[in-house]
């Protein structure tokens, strides 16, 4: 059915089944392919986007559950935390294959929005849901600390 969905600041209309996961609406209907499919059961975090600023796994969220909430994908990520995350990710060359990294960055952004100076343990607990088979975790942790430092100025 036709519905409105707020993505990256735009109110967009899509015509999709109610049960279609937000991930596939973003990817197939809105051509925003930054969020990735990795598991389909909220186990890997490659599909992470922000819903009113909180990190959610878009692969298990039916589009009908989004309602009026604001969806932010990597393509529309902005603000101090997102900018700090992007520049830290680039400064430290965190990426390897890169497939999971947009999800990692969205989780990191959501973390820094609520906790601008997380400890290692807080990073681990916020990022535990994001898998990386290249195992770039060591740099992810370092990049989050770096982004936190940059935000602190």
């Amino acid at each position, binding site marked *: 059915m036709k519905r409105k969905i707020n993505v990256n600041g735009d109110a967009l209309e899509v015509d999709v089944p109610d049960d279609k996961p937000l991930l596939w609406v973003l990817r197939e209907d809105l051509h925003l392919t930054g969020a990735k499919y990795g598991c389909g059961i909220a186990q890997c975090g490659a599909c992470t986007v922000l819903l009113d600023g909180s990190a959610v796994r878009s692969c298990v969220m039916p589009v009908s559950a989004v309602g009026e909430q604001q969806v932010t994908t990597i393509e529309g990520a902005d603000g101090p935390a997102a900018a700090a995350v992007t520049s830290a990710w680039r400064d430290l060359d965190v990426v390897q294959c890169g497939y999971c990294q947009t999800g990692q960055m969205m989780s990191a952004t959501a973390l820094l929005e609520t906790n601008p100076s997380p400890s290692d343990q807080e990073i681990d607990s916020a990022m535990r849901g994001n898998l990386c088979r290249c*195992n770039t975790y060591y740099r992810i942790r370092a990049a989050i600390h770096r982004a936190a430092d940059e935000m602190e100025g």
Partner: protein
Amino acid sequence: MFENGRFSAKFPRPTLDRRGFLQVIGLSGAGFLIGCSRSGETVTAGGDPDGAAIAEFGPFIRIGSDNAVTVVIKHLDKGQGVTTGLPTIVAEELDAAWTQMRAEFAPADVSLYNNLSWGPIQGTGGSSSVANSWMQLREAAAAARSMLVTAASEKWQVASDEITVSSGVVGHRASGNSATFGDLAARAAGVAPPATLTLKKPQDFSLIGTRLPRLDSPAKTDGSAEFTIDISRPGMVVALVAHPPRFGATVRSFDASQSLEVAGVSDVVEIPRGVAVVADSFWSAKKGRDALTVDWDFSKAENRSSEEIFAHYKELAQGDGLVAHESGDAAASLASAQATVRREFRFPFLAHAAMEPMDCVVEIGDQKCDIWTGSQFQTNDQYVAAEILGIQPEQVEIHTHFAGGSFGRRAVPDSDYVAEAVTIAKAIGGRAPVKLIWTREDDMRAGRYRPMSHHVLEGGVDDSGEVSAWRHKVTMQSFMAGTAFEAMIQNGIDGSSVEGARNLPYAIENMRVELQPAENGVPTLWWRSVGHSHNAFATEAFFDEMAHLAGKDPYEYRRDLLAEHPRYLQVLDLVAKKAGWGDSLGENRGRGIAIHKSYGTIVAEVVDVTLTGNSFTVDKVYCAVDCGIAINPDVVRAQMEGGIGFGLSAALREQVTLENGEVQQTNFNTYRSLRIDEMPDIEVHIVPSNREPSGVGEPGVPPLAPALANALFDASGRRVYRLPIGDQLWS
């Protein structure tokens, strides 16, 4: 991979013969093209804008009028960083500025883009990308540089030996002339290639060995990097396949009526690999497949459990194997030893579980086919697709895209997922472009695992207290048999099964290494570090036990028996020094060491653990690596960090098991790989070297698991003989 077989042909040394050199770097063909046409896929941000005139300097280097230098990458970048490493080699010999470098994946063409380490095939694997491209790209870049200098000399009417090139600027001090590469490219592409080349000396390198930002970081951090799963074609449909639930099962019949009622589902077709459901989107295809009923014929399937297969291996291991290495007389030495130890090791099937599941986009045209995918074997896939469609390989165009990991999975002798996509596109009459997507469950259960293996190791210490006997028998299946890579099996021995075991560097007088080939119906494949992934564990964990039996310190005893190998010693000493080997660690802690050479690169790792009740934490990993010249030291460090995490993940919990022939793991909730909270602190140290570069994608993996097991022994007094470690030390 490909270390010991026919495919390990040495790559050509720098040749001074002009014709030979021009052939190697591809400058001997029809000359140079200038224009805007391009066949490859730009992979880095800031590619040549439309309309910039492009001058080609052979098949690897293009310089645009906008001053962009594009390096055509013949390999797949699946994270290991070749889209940064290979441009670094070019930039160095070209004296380019790093900011002007771009990367683009090459089209599939074995005549131009052969892997010189193990071709004839355009392929990526065996940590060979930098090693086999090293001289090829240096020569291509040096030739292009020389042509730019000649063009400037002609343009400015000055002597070419008075011209300098630095950071992308060609200059002539006396006349005050200067020009960018972009200014000179069109003219330079028209001059005759040089008759001789002078390559830089390592001490003159200004980019190689420095930290340069990865060229793929910008696109991979803003969502614009295109993976296969992101490809969209006009009118494209999405296909999911119902694969047999057991390997070797076939379709007896199927009922598509419910599937076809799902909105968006257009076709349900039987293909040799199962039943494909084709729809307008992933979600429709998935619902359509969920609604499909298939009656499978299991009469020719592998119906055993992995426990049953392993029990069979254990039985097989009692017989004589094929001799892969023999020096001295291990049997006699064991018989006369003062003390002996015999241990059996066991390693599971492992999934690659790359974050991007297997996927492929296929568009069939009139006497042609376009394929978009991230493949490690482009020209192999090209041949397989051509055969399915009854066209010529050169009519199949492969568009290589970034792969979201691979770890060997996208190097498939029978091109499984590519063949599947082509078959489906053909089955719907080429009506629409097809995107095949495997769900995570499909990917996890589709096989091509790292083979399971059983190892028996026996060692003896003689009356002088030295290890004098070593006997190792590996029992496992080969994944080369029956494929285009069968030639890698020599005298019945698949070299990849015994790599790292049959060439043990330790000075042990009597050694015998055997392979007992086994067979089963589970399809297997190379998995990051291949045979080294299990042989390094068996040999380095057992060596540790032998050192203990001989009453020696495990680091010192490795030193003693590696005395004839200065490269090994340097790596071993570096890691021991950085870790502070011999320092006291404190209560409930332990430390282990391991060293292993794979693909020409030597890596040693020290692992520190802490016991925590009924479990343990891995606190820190120290790593030393000798990979020859480190082209991009930060990429080398990244590969070691990633390799350590990959090795740790497998060591802790990863395994694929079968019950009644059915794979028990389905997704990341049951195939539990490492998460950030278990990632240890890591320190990587690179041995300075002027040797030609060797690979770094795989060699960080093998030493991790044995170093961890040795650390657990140090902490707990218990040894690990079976992976994954799981909770076996406490159960």
